[in-house]
């Protein structure tokens, strides 16, 4: 039986599990090296969630409540690709974020900023046949956290991707270009320097709609398949 397998990430693409400037990693990171598994059916298959029914409204986070949320309306659009530039067709893309004031719709978020009754902050969309996806939302606010003195998270949107296999599962965060807080954020800076700018969306005037919303482009690159199938 020949199976297609997925390429292993080379060093320097993902953050190390132990990134001491991000304090929570100290108590939550394995110290022993992960054991490399050959890619068997268990790793090259994975949930495609193809039968999942998505409501069209899930892609527009500004229209999930009675009225529009406060904040700067934005369009976030991009493609889900693999390392070879091939589309990941029909990929399910999930996002979640805080509101424009920097507060999550979550009981554990105690930041002294207002909740917005018109903003929930979760969205899903299925990419098209070319891997293209598009969300409408509001720009999330920055918010403080307790990692260190005067710690602030830069504005970010959480992304969840499954890709074609268990091996390609990815959860990440999208940041906004030229945010001055990026330089101080230990989560963003946990990614090796050569790779971390991949987490910044690009402002895109072509995506921007006159009189309506700013456009940001964010492509997501998942692992590519090995060129030569394993015997």
């Amino acid at each position, binding site marked *: 039986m020949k199976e297609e397998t997925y390429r292993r990430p080379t060093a320097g693409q993902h953050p190390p599990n132990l990134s001491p400037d*991000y304090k929570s990693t100290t108590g939550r990171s394995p*110290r022993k090296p*992960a054991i490399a598994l050959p890619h068997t059916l268990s790793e*090259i298959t994975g949930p495609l969630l193809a039968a999942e029914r998505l409501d069209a409204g899930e892609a527009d986070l500004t229209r999930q409540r009675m009225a529009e949320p406060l904040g700067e309306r934005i369009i976030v659009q991009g493609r889900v690709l693999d390392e*070879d530039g091939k589309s990941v067709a029909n990929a399910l893309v999930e996002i979640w974020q805080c509101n424009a004031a920097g507060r999550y719709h979550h*009981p554990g978020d105690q930041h002294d900023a207002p909740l917005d009754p018109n903003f929930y902050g979760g969205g899903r969309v299925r990419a098209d046949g070319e891997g293209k996806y598009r969300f409408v939302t509001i720009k999330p606010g920055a918010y403080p956290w307790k990692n260190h003195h005067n710690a602030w998270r830069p504005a970010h949107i959480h992304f969840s991707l499954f890709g074609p296999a268990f091996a390609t599962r990815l959860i990440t965060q999208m940041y906004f270009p030229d945010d001055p807080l990026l330089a101080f954020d230990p989560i963003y800076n946990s990614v090796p320097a050569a790779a971390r700018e991949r987490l910044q969306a690009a402002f895109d005037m072509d995506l921007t709609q006159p009189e309506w919303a700013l456009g940001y482009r964010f492509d997501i690159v998942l692992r590519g398949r090995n060129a030569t199938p394993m015997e």
Partner: protein
Amino acid sequence: MSRGLTPSQTIGPFYWGTLVNAYRCDLARPGMPGERIEIVLKLHDVEGAIVADGLFEIWQANSHGRYNHPDDRRNLALDAGFEGYGRASTFTDGCARFGTVKPGRVPWPEGGLQAPHINISLFARGVLNRLATRLYFEGDAALAEDPVLKMIEPARRDTLIAKRDTQGAWHLPIHLGGPKETVFFDV
């Protein structure tokens, strides 16, 4: 064209209610072929303390050993309504619970079969990369010949083997570090 991988980031503490608004913790409707099982995954940090804000995902074959995925091209039955995917976060007791059916055996690329197992992804605040591990079933006759377990030093194999309680539920503690650190896989 070669493109750089999008780096991983933590799920953070605030996914619940937005990313996850409905758990998929029951994978098998009544009547699904196979042995119905309950799984309890309990998450601990490196000090052994309970982690109450982690998210577990599971991926498994059906009772015939068939994955619901186009790259599993074997001539084995798919069961209507069984996707094989579940997701649930840990509660204040550190546990995430799933109801499913025991998976069948799936092949090893070099020949033979793997022991029945469930593939596990773990996300949490403080966890920058998805952690992958597996759950095996104590007492299963196939454990001794499983090629993945054979790759692991014997003293650590137990970290992957769930034990059954008196009510029949399968329990697997997952330790992010410390002396009982779970075996995690680079998949």
